[in-house]
């Protein structure tokens, strides 16, 4: 759906994007993850036609973005990091203004706006001037402006980062709803918990370079700590010995009723272990694969990236 190849961008002499490439699949939630200053906002401003760039290619729906910008923008919605409005307008007026620019028919627009205001939970404040809105309300209004024309692709730049916990949850719930409706979502964030919750694929950017681009599930498979924590009903007897003989077992630590078992291949390990355990006389009361979070993976990878340089 979105294909970016070797995109480069500099501000004056500072090279901010050093040739990034990635692919966003239709209907997926693509997590664009990086620390502050990594180049997320710059990338999104380019992909929404707001910033020029030096070199590289952008294809959206198979069409060249630069050549078909006006056409392609019709299917794109953008929620900027710090949305700015005409603050003397109220939410209703602003959405009307944006809808008119987008070319929506007045009659349907009025109806759609009322519906949108309900969706983003701004109905009560719709006739108040935007200058009096809180950060979270502005964020929700900007989301409404971004989806007013029912775009297929959404660019959301840190939609929840600046919000309080309650606002964050509301925003995430809205994202999940959009995901359910089949939108392709390009979501930048530095909050890994949020990415973990909604993304199908993550792409880590650091200092203008892509360090990793992978499906979230593959990522877990690759970086998961290959350790099983198993607790038995009775004290251990022969179990340790039996398990130790298996070829895919790396090492075993036993203590009382508990075994910590490392494997050298998580795929085989996961497939085999339950069979083996069910053959034992001692019942298993608890079984767990030690899961590392995206946060661990992120720290791991960005550290590696630093070492490579």
């Amino acid at each position, binding site marked *: 759906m979105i294909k970016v190849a070797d995109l480069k961008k500099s501000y004056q002499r500072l090279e901010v994007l050093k040739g990034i490439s990635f692919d966003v699949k239709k209907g997926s939630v693509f997590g664009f993850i990086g620390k502050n200053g990594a180049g997320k906002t710059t990338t999104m401003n380019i992909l929404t036609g707001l910033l020029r760039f030096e070199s590289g290619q952008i294809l959206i729906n198979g069409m060249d973005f630069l050549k078909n*910008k*006006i056409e392609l*923008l019709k299917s794109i919605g953008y929620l*900027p990091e710090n*949305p700015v409005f005409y603050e003397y307008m109220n939410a209703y007026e602003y959405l009307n*203004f944006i809808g008119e*620019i987008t070319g929506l028919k007045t009659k349907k627009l009025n109806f759609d706006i009322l519906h949108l205001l309900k969706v983003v939970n701004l109905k009560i404040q719709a006739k108040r001037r935007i200058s009096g809105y809180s950060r979270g309300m502005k964020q929700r209004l*900007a989301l409404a*402006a971004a989806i007013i024309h029912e775009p297929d692709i959404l660019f959301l730049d840190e939609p929840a980062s600046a919000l309080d916990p309650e606002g964050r949850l509301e925003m995430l719930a809205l994202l999940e709803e959009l995901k359910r409706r089949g939108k392709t979502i390009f979501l930048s964030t530095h909050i890994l918990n949020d990415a973990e919750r909604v993304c199908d694929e993550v792409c880590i950017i650091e200092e203008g370079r892509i360090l990793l681009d992978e499906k979230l599930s593959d990522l877990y498979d690759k970086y998961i700590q290959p350790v099983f924590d198993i607790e038995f009903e009775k004290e251990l007897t022969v179990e340790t010995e039996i398990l130790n003989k298996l070829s895919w077992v790396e090492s075993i630590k036993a203590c009382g009723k508990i075994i910590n078992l490392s494997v050298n291949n998580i795929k085989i390990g996961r497939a085999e272990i339950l069979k083996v355990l069910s053959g034992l006389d001692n019942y298993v009361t608890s079984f767990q694969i030690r899961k590392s979070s995206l946060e661990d993976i992120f720290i791991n990878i960005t550290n590696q990236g630093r070492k490579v340089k």
Partner: protein
Amino acid sequence: MRSFRAYFKKEFKEAARNYKYLILAVGFIFWALLDPLMLKLLPLILKASLPVELLSQFTNINRDYAFLNLLKDLFQVGTLFFVFSLMGIISSEVSKKKLVLPYSRGLKPEGMVLAKYIHYAITVSIFIFAAFLTNYFYVKSLFNSGVLSIQIVLWSCFLYILYFAVILALLLYMSSLFKKSIIPGLLVLAIVYGFNFFNQLSLIRNYLPNYLILRAADLGVFFDTSLIPTFFISVFLIAIFIFLTIIRMKKIDVA
């Protein structure tokens, strides 16, 4: 067209709610009301304290003098109000990132630029017209003698409106070039006042818009051929500045 419509309405709301209409009204119409009154009252107030010779200057104030006084104030002070209230017309939109959402929705820059220009050109025309007309009736009732007639007032009014239309186009373009509004503001003021100097050079003055200001004060003299280049160049400048602004707004990074 839809970008034009959306921005025309937006400019209307903005000017009304951010008191731009009020400021412009003060900048133009206020003088039309205040000037004649001052000219009428000042001699009365000063009667006691001024020597007779000086006072005689005030006593032969006629309608022409009062009207010329308005022209002078509109040029000197009206432009200040005009330029300072509109210098951010594009620069503040860009620097405060207000164009991010509209541009991401496929805003057509030509629609926005034309809407801004036409909205304020109409606004200023109305205020100038109102100022000239109120001043005329006011002056007529307060003072006697002079050649001033409604034809003269309307002719001067037309020249002023054309002049401000040129300045507005210049301001629009300058405002699209800089991020800090004060820079286009000062540049335009320097051009407005500085170019008045050329009115002393009879060979080239009618090739510059400030000649309109000179001719507006030439009461009783209407169109002559020396104005042809002035008109032509004024219209050309308006077109070229608007065109350059559109080009600029098509290329500019709004994020």
